[in-house]
């Protein structure tokens, strides 16, 4: 299931949500993946706070974010994994507004691609704007679809 979904996503298509085989396990796997996303975002945060971060570290982070963003449709958010399952913080609106959720996922993926491209140039001074774009892409989706905090 995951491969055709990822292929569709790669072509710019946004497939429908897949059903969860084991919802509790799916929530745990999603959160583990989101923890890996947070690891990458922490590098971006250190950069934004003016700490010493190399363009190579940012490029690695952008790669991780891109990989995880591409997986958002491919099983990370199967149906039946909203708030109430495990310690899910995913609002049910994700599946009610699936196309909008897909738009946010596409935006994040595009922002990560751009960040990786700028990071590959090694020009740290040019990184702030694409880093901020990635952070804002996360925040836009979390505002609507993730329960605080």
């Amino acid at each position: 299931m995951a491969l055709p979904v990822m292929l569709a996503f790669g072509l710019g298509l946004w497939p429908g949500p897949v059903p969860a085989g084991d919802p509790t396990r799916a929530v745990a796997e999603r959160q583990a993946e989101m923890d890996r996303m947070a690891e990458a975002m922490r590098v971006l945060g250190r950069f934004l706070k003016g700490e010493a971060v190399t363009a190579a570290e940012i490029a690695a982070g952008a790669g991780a974010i891109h990989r995880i963003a591409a997986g958002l449709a491919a099983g990370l958010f199967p149906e039946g994994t909203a708030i109430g399952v495990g310690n899910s913080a995913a609002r049910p609106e994700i599946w009610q507004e699936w196309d909008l959720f897909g738009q946010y996922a596409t935006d994040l993926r595009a922002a990560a691609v751009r960040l990786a491209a700028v990071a590959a140039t090694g020009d740290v001074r040019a990184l702030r704007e694409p880093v901020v774009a990635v952070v804002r892409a996360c925040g836009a989706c979390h505002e609507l679809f993730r329960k605080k905090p």
Partner: protein
Amino acid sequence: MNPIGRFLSGGRPPALPALLPVLLLLALLVPAAAALRAQSQAERALRGQYLFDAAGCFGCHTDEVHGGQRLAGGRALETPFGTFYPPNITPDPIYGIGNWSDADFIRALRHGVRADGSPLFPAFPYTSYTLMDDGDILDLKAYLMAQKPVAQPNRPHELKDPFGWRVLMPAWNLMYLHVGPLDTNPRQSAQWNRGQYLVRALGHCGECHTPRDWLGGLDPHRALAGIPAADGGEAAPNLTPDPDTGLGRWSEADLLLLLEMGLKPDGDVVGGSMAEVVRNTTSQLTLADRKAIFAYLRSLPPLTAAGPTPPP
């Protein structure tokens, strides 16, 4: 004595030619006064725009998710007491606040009373806005009055009894409303005082981050100590500088980044209503104001959280 002087001393009215200089002067002064007032209102509105952002008016008074018109109200605010629908605050004279006087507007924010004299519910955070000073309240009003009027009627709240009984509000206010404005603390720096004003008055941070009792009043002994999620609602973290359960281990740069774009030190990004607060309010503040917020929060007595713990 000239003809006007004689008239003022009880003499005959002056002839028209004698009045011409006065009429000419009036013809010049009246438009000049009107222009000055318009300029003053425009300046007030400009200052009011910043206060509007800092006070977070847009979020509650615009039903953004359903494509509602700006500031026309109607956004559902679900609480343990029922669902509130914030009103239209555009300058529409019938459905909005277009006919409110300065005194009406000050009374609403300072005392929680509508222009028709009926009490407001504290879902409108007048218990925080009461701490604003009159000048800021009127600047905010000038900004609202400069917005596009929208003829949209208000939707009645859907509240559980007895929380929907406005008649009880004066008693509630006696218990929980501490009428402002906020006093400056002369023992603290200007930055600290500004931070206090931003956190307690404009930003009304305590409305979400301070625990409430069963009547909905804020617990002053637990100010900003955070709240756990209840009834499916959102939790709010501890903002006091407790090192284990609060912001004690956050640097200034950590908090500035969170307020600017919602990114936490552990790489997580805020969600839900705090993401909205970051977008509409804290990201719109000046760097100096965000630093003032940090200075104030860092000075608070550390309290142990009852709610979620911010990341180290």
